[in-house]
């Protein structure tokens, strides 16, 4: 079956064509992503109105481009998969309005896809999806959660952040260091060659047995640390060491809690997904720790860590294979909890 995937939930406009077989194999025939990061950078975060305007300008020609590249006509498409939430309301409405209208004219069913569910299954793109059950650390600018995935559409939330998401902590720490948005890549770059043990930053919530996170205290600790180094005395190596220390603190917490989730649930398969999963330090720590503990770790290709439409099409493909039906009535859901 051929599925057109559309993603407009935040600041990436994306479209992709997926070809799936009855045997459950899927491959991406064409995909495009237009990132708005540079546009939002000067505002220090995503501006919903600007994001919505950019989606409207980018999406229609992008869909034409992936259809052309995949040599797929509208009459050959079996399904349109579109992100229905969670996300920015105005941004979601662009993708949904477009998808539904195209579906109506061409008599193609339109599947509403949960954006975070799509992230959960992104490791299956281009590689093998782990056997069920598996534990997923979903970590991005808006989310930090540990989920037990028992099947397509069967999840159990094990823990989540009680305040800031890990990506948010990167963003806010970056701002304190005078680095641009988004903070994750900026801190990662500055951290290269830095000493991660120089600044003793806290590892919040590690002393608790539960699987929740908290990053607001870490951000405050970064603020106090920055203040202790006056501007005039600040050397490049100080900033590099501090960036490395921040990255290490966040990674330590994420890795430790993820491993704890695997142990508590007695599930030896661990998936890391979401935009922060693109962080190299974090990926290396996951792989090292997993090897020591005998866990199988699955991480999406870097391009499928951040928002993309291939994962939206893939999620719809899995849902369709699992027998999910499209609800008669559905709409954009800016807040859509991930729990079944």
């Amino acid at each position, binding site marked *: 079956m051929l599925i057109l995937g559309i993603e407009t939930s935040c600041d990436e406009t994306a479209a992709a064509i997926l070809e799936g077989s009855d045997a459950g194999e899927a491959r991406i025939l064409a995909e495009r992503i237009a990132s708005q990061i540079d546009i939002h950078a000067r505002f220090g975060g995503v501006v919903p109105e600007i994001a919505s305007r950019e989606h409207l300008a980018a999406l229609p020609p992008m869909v034409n481009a992936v259809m052309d590249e995949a040599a797929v006509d509208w009459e050959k498409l079996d399904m349109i998969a579109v992100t229905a939430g969670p996300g920015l309301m105005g941004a979601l409405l662009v993708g*949904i309005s*477009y998808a539904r*209208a195209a579906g109506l004219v061409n008599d193609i069913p339109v599947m509403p896809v949960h954006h975070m569910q799509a992230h959960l299954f992104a490791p299956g793109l281009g590689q093998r999806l782990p056997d069920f059950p598996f534990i997923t650390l979903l970590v991005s600018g808006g989310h930090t959660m540990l989920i037990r995935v028992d099947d397509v559409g069967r999840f159990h939330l094990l823990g989540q952040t009680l305040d800031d998401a890990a990506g948010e902590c990167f963003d806010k720490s970056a701002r304190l260091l005078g680095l641009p948005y988004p903070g994750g890549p900026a801190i990662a770059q500055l951290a290269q060659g830095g000493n991660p043990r120089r600044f003793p930053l806290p590892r919040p919530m590690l002393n608790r047995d539960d699987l929740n996170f908290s990053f607001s205290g870490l951000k405050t600790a970064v603020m106090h640390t920055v203040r202790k180094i006056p501007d005039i005395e600040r050397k490049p190596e100080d900033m590099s060491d501090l960036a490395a220390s921040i990255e290490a603190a966040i990674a330590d917490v994420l890795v430790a809690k993820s491993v704890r989730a695997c142990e508590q649930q007695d599930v030896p398969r661990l998936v890391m997904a979401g935009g922060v999963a693109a962080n190299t330090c974090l990926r290396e720590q996951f792989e090292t720790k997993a090897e020591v503990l005998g866990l199988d770790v699955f991480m999406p290709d870097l391009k499928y860590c951040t928002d993309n439409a291939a994962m939206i099409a893939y999620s719809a493909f899995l849902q369709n294979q699992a027998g999910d039906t499209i609800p008669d009535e559905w709409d954009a859901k800016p807040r859509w909890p991930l729990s079944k």
Partner: protein
Amino acid sequence: MSPPQRILALDAAYGPAAACLLLPDGKPLLAETDQNTPHSQSILPMLHGLLEKAGVDWQQLDMLAASVGPGSFTGLRVAAATISGLNASLGLPVMSVSSLAITAWQADTPERIWVIEDARSGDAYIGCYKLGVALQPDQCLSWQEVAELPAASFVSLTEPAAELSTWQRVAPVHSRAEALAELVSRQAPQGDSASLPRRAIPAYMQPSQAERKAAGG
């Protein structure tokens, strides 16, 4: 090339959405959504209903038309995204209609009429029309600038945010869908429409709040 005969037009700039289907026999079919259903739920059933009522297939349409603003940012975008989705496979020419021109036509007057709509953030969208023809480009002014204009007749679908006591407010006479149909019928190209764009581009006329703030506004 013969002039377009079957034109589907959509407006969602203010409040409920309106649509019309122009047909070769000259009598348009009209529809409007109700106040309580979101555009994302109501627009497509409305458009589908118009085509069903006329017994027309999507592939038989000659042209699409969209009210491109100014107006509610979200309304303009939902209409434009819908038009783009409909047109993804149809590839039809898309004509743009001013949302203020539609409101002016609703007033049903042979005289010059101003359209003044609250644009929020202390601004107003204003247009000046006579029999559907713009006497000046639509623009976005501060309410203070509007209040300094010479008083005249105006029509509005929103409540003015400035004292316009010397102005004469005219109530809309025609429905939004009637006015949309009349304007599209008058403004549709009589000859080759191939040069028209294949999508609707909203005329926001205002930057986002974040951009205004960054600019010191």
